[in-house]
């Protein structure tokens, strides 16, 4: 079976709704294509939440766009690996097939609710649009369903606000509309790319709770992209830390927080503000190297305190600690 499934094989579990196997995504800089995501693998089962964590530029959003098939043409491309959504191989499919999958069996919520909705179309229609497209519903039936969806995401007075435009909504309300929009066709997989980053802290909690609630109810496989480890701890089942396009650590949330093992994961946790101790925040020294200057081996090596000669070679993901599903990609942390 694929590497992705081996990582966290659970007997008798439902088959995963999303499988990403050895995905490599390249970005063009000038005339050269560079690997921005290097052979990452994971699987998400129905009702499960996988959090993809890392700082800006680590490849997490590119992974999401690759899965959606929405990489900007001419700038980004999937150059290797397989993406299987609800049994359909998206990498082998043609564009019409991918079009029919998007918005139907796989939905996505974006970071910026203020700009992600079309300012000149009524929100009811924007939610209803994919139902008209994929389910062939009449406009009236689709709008009726849109009202139910808006009620599901708790938009107050949904029926009277179908004709309202995005500028009449607050940021939090717009993100609810985005969730309703992504859920319109009952997708199997939902990708949420930093869904709460642009929102006020109080609204963040509401939106997260709403997403978790809807996810359990609809049996969604959720790929949650975030840089906020607090969000990970509160809603995710499993976590995957990315750095420079590589998965550097992955495992169940409990095992990860009990024993963060990659030097980068440790650094991420040390850079998080804590409500209890007086220890000052520890920023991670240096910056993510640009794509053109990435080291060939372990990409964190340039910023790592545990660096040694072997880091010029990329370490494999190997089990660490007590949980066999807890994997780390670091020579220094491998069991001898």
């Amino acid at each position, binding site marked *: 079976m694929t590497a992705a499934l081996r990582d966290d094989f659970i007997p008798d579990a439902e088959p995963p709704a999303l499988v990403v196997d050895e995905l490599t995504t390249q970005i063009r800089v000038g005339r050269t294509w560079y690997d921005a995501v290097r052979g990452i693998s994971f699987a998400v089962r129905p009702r499960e939440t996988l959090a993809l964590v890392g700082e800006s530029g680590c490849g997490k959003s590119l992974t999401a766009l690759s899965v959606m098939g929405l990489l900007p043409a001419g700038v980004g491309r999937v150059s290797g690996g397989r993406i299987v959504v609800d049994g359909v191989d998206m990498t082998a499919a043609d564009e019409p097939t991918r079009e029919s999958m*998007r918005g139907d069996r796989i*939905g996505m919520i*974006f970071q*910026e609710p203020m700009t992600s*909705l079309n300012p000149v179309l*009524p929100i009811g229609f924007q939610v209803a*649009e994919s139902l008209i497209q994929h389910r062939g519903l009449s406009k009236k039936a689709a709008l009726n369903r849109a009202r139910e969806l808006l009620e599901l995401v708790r938009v107050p007075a949904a029926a009277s606000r179908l004709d309202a*435009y995005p500028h009449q909504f607050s940021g939090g309300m717009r993100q609810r509309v985005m969730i309703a929009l992504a859920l319109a066709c009952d997708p199997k997989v939902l990708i949420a790319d930093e869904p709460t980053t642009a929102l006020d802290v109080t609204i963040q909690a509401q939106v997260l709770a709403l997403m978790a609630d809807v996810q359990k109810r609809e049996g969604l496989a959720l790929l949650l992209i975030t840089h906020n480890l607090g969000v990970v701890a509160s809603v995710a089942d499993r976590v995957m830390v990315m750095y420079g396009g590589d998965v550097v650590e992955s495992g169940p949330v409990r095992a990860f927080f009990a024993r963060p093992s990659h030097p980068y994961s440790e650094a991420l946790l040390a850079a998080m503000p804590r409500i209890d101790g007086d220890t000052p925040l520890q920023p991670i020294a240096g910056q993510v190297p640009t794509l053109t200057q990435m080291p060939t081996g372990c990409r964190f090596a340039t910023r790592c305190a545990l660096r040694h000669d072997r880091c010029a070679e990329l370490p494999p993901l190997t089990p660490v600690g007590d949980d066999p599903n807890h994997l780390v990609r670091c020579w220094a942390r491998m069991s001898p």
Partner: protein
Amino acid sequence: MLRFVIKRLILAIPTLWAVLTTVFVLVRVVPGDPTIAILGDQASEGARAELRDKLGLSKPILAQYVDFMSQILTGDLGRSLSTNRPIADDVLAVLPYTIELTLAALVVGTVLGVPLGVLAAKNRNGFADWFARIFSLAGVSFPAFVSGILLLLVFAVELRWFPVISSANAADPVERLRALVLPALNLGLLMVAYVTRVTRSGMLKALSEDYVRTARAKGLPYRTVVWRHAFRNVLVPIVTVVGLYLGVLIGNAVLTEIVFNRPGIGKLIVTALNQRDYSLLQGLMVVSAFAIVLANILTDLTYGLVDPRVKTQ
């Protein structure tokens, strides 16, 4: 909506007042004595004084201003100095030709410019984009009298598709339409250039917006994404440029009307200038000013239709 219209009409009053005052002042500071222009330089001082009295030019300037304003408010543009016919009649006789030409040019500019701009943005740096860019550049660079003569040479003289001598006042509607094609194309070309450029840059911006990504994430066909999601957001700049051009076209109609020998406001302006017919000139400027203010009001009203954010303000 009605309140918006009323508000917009009230706001137009100071604009019109300012324009009318400027026209009044301009006509009186242009060098040259109108009485000499009318009676010739051999006229006696007595005859000229008599004419001045008749035209009201011997009154104090403030009284002339009050007369001028009250006349216009009653819809009276006065009488032509050279022909002594009511100016309103002269203007109304040719106004339909200019309106016809301007609207036809507006249609040409929009119908050619908008799809060209969208096509150029969709195929950025592709063949359509290059074509649109070169076409735009040529459109802006050619003065209307040069392009008009070229159009006449190619399509009227060589190919004989359209009449050389305008038959704009023909009774036969088909003949009238044939006479309209080349002038409308000539006047519209200038606008095609601008409309194409505004559409292209607006579409390029819109296609990179987050809401377009959302639309694609819904699995909509690319055509729907382009037209329903991106293009609708570009309507505001397009309406702006088209509205502005309504004013520009009224002014540019002069050259086209002369090259194609069409009756219209433009030809009347030239006649008035040649005859130093101050009152006719004054009347024509008033009519043009009203037309441009009306065009701007229409543009503002259209904003409310294409952008929901305008309505609630």
